[in-house]
């Protein structure tokens, strides 16, 4: 500190600047000093630093909280009109009978849960999600690792891989039919292989209408949607700083070790969002299934949307309402489980 300078903490309660010669008050004892400073310290504290920012923020926050409802109003109005209010009606109907008059308690739920078509559709949907989502995320992750470059090149690969998502399903279905129809490219390839291996077998399966429809749906779905997840993974990879990799390289870490100890932990945040957005996209597989195999496809790909469209065509409103309630309950249960898991994870992380 400069000669003659005064520590800042004391400038507030002294009416002198740094340049004036030092004048000290007569020391009245430690107790007196503490008593005198009590009010002073309180005044200083109320004016400085965090408290000043808090008071300012309070004003802005209040204004924003009021404005928020104006910003939200159009969106909320539509959500209420098109979703919330009719959903209450749906809940009500799921407890009424077919005529919509008498209450039947949980009989509708029992009926739907016991419905074999519903069980088949639900199990197929769960099976599809359980198989397709991990495959999709792994494939897109592998592609992201392949395509990722920090110097901004490799755009051709990115464009190419996202292109399938942009092509309309109705147009692509023609190509899938070319490959998978009874005299299509897949059967031709298998026939050629059988001929080369000198096996007497003629392949003319109608793949789309057999139990092979499930793998076909998965392949076409991954072909179409890997690009979107690829973009998410690339964003996550770009957010990991390069210095970590350089430090690891200097310490002698190989590619596999770098992947395990830097990349994967760094992508843990992206993983959750990729999962959510993949689930959102996964229900659109119905479009491909409908265009490839029609409204009543093979049993292996008969999923919830097929069942609901069947109920819709037969005007089975009661079943549809009950089914909707069951789906929403399932979604809420999964969200609650995920939230609980995250809470426990965090608590374990804190204690550990």
């Amino acid at each position, binding site marked *: 500190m400069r000669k003659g300078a005064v520590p800042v903490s004391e400038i507030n309660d002294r009416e002198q600047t740094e340049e004036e010669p030092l004048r000290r008050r007569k020391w009245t004892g430690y107790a007196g000093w503490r008593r005198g400073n009590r009010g002073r310290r309180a005044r200083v504290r109320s004016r400085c630093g965090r408290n000043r920012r808090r008071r300012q923020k309070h004003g802005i926050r209040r204004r924003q909280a009021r404005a928020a409802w104006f910003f939200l109003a159009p969106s909320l109005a539509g959500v209420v009109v098109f979703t919330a209010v009719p959903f209450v009606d749906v809940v009500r109907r799921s407890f009424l009978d077919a005529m919509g008059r008498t209450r039947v308690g949980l009989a509708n739920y029992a009926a739907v849960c016991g419905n074999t078509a519903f069980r088949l559709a639900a199990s197929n949907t769960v099976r599809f999600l359980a198989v397709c989502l991990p495959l999709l995320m792994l494939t897109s992750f592998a*592609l992201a690792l392949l395509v990722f470059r920090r110097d901004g090149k490799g755009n051709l690969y990115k464009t190419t891989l996202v292109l399938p998502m*942009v092509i309309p399903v109705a147009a692509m279905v023609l190509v899938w039919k070319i490959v998978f129809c009874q005299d299509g490219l897949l059967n031709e390839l298998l026939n050629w292989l059988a001929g080369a291996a000198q096996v007497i077998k003629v392949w003319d399966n109608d793949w789309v209408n057999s139990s092979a429809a499930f793998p076909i749906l998965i392949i076409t779905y991954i072909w179409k949607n890997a690009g979107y997840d690829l973009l*998410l993974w690339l964003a996550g990879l770009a957010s990991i700083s390069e210095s970590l990799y350089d430090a690891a390289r200097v310490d002698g870490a190989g590619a596999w070790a770098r992947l395990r100890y830097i990349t994967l932990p760094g992508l843990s945040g992206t993983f959750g969002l990729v999962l*959510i957005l993949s689930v959102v996209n996964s229900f659109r597989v119905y479009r491909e299934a409908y265009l490839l195999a029609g409204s009543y496809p093979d049993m292996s790909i008969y999923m919830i949307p097929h069942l609901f469209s069947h109920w819709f065509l037969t005007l089975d409103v009661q079943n549809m309402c009950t089914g909707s309630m069951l789906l929403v309950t399932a979604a809420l249960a999964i969200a609650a489980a995920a939230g609980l898991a995250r809470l426990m994870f965090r608590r374990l992380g804190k204690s550990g």
Partner: protein
Amino acid sequence: MRDLSRKISVTAKRKPLPRAVRARLRLAVCAAVCLLVWLPIILMLAAAFMPEDELLYRYAEPLGAGRETVRAALLPSYPSVKPFLELLFRSPGFYVMFWNSCIQVIPALAGQFLVGAPAAWAFARFSFTGKKPLFFLYVLLMVLPFQVTQVSNYLVLDRLHFLNTHLALILPAVWAAFPVFIMTKSFETIPEALLEAAYLDGAGELRAFLHVGLPSGYPGIVTALLLGFIDNWNALEQPVAFLKEMSLWPLSLYLPNIAQEKAAVAFAAGIVMMMPPVLLYLNGQSELEQGVAASGVKE
């Protein structure tokens, strides 16, 4: 640094492949994957330029004209622009369907922007009571498939007498939750300092949103609108559920039927249907990447 790492890697347990080989291998795998993407597209493009007799010779079975071996080709043997002429000049039905698609998609996108952008701004920048449960509700709506709200939507549209009109498809699409989610994530990435500077200059909330928020959140808006366009351009379940008249059908429903009526134009129609989303994507590609990146960053 490079020499050092090479020395260290030599002393490591396994010697990795030399850099040149690794780069070539990577290029080869990338090229193979891209080929997997390009081959079906080239197949479609080639088929779009084939005259009718060649189409029936090659692709009779996928077009539903009887069982015959598929003789696929990546280049047409007799290239001809006839399918496109037939489609664009002699198929009035196609124009009606294309126009239907446009009527159903473009107002929906405009509505999504007008309704969703302010809501996304509120979720991203303001803190108010009930923000977390409300945002959770939006995420839940986003995740639920169309079939869950199908009945509710049908009843509401019936009550409002919008069934069997274009509004039956436009209105539910305007209040979709996915664009709000994407735009929220994008608005969250705007630095607070930018807005504080606006407030210091005397901007109110509305002005800050219009003059600072919208320009800064442009990638997210483009992403939301592009993904919304693709989703609505391909819409299948909604027209089937809410539209009865075939004259109101969009292109996504008409295309599968075109193969039965006029096999010659099936692939050409597919290419024409593909053009708007692909062109929009190529134009908005960098914004799409930024917007998707923003939605993937966890707070």
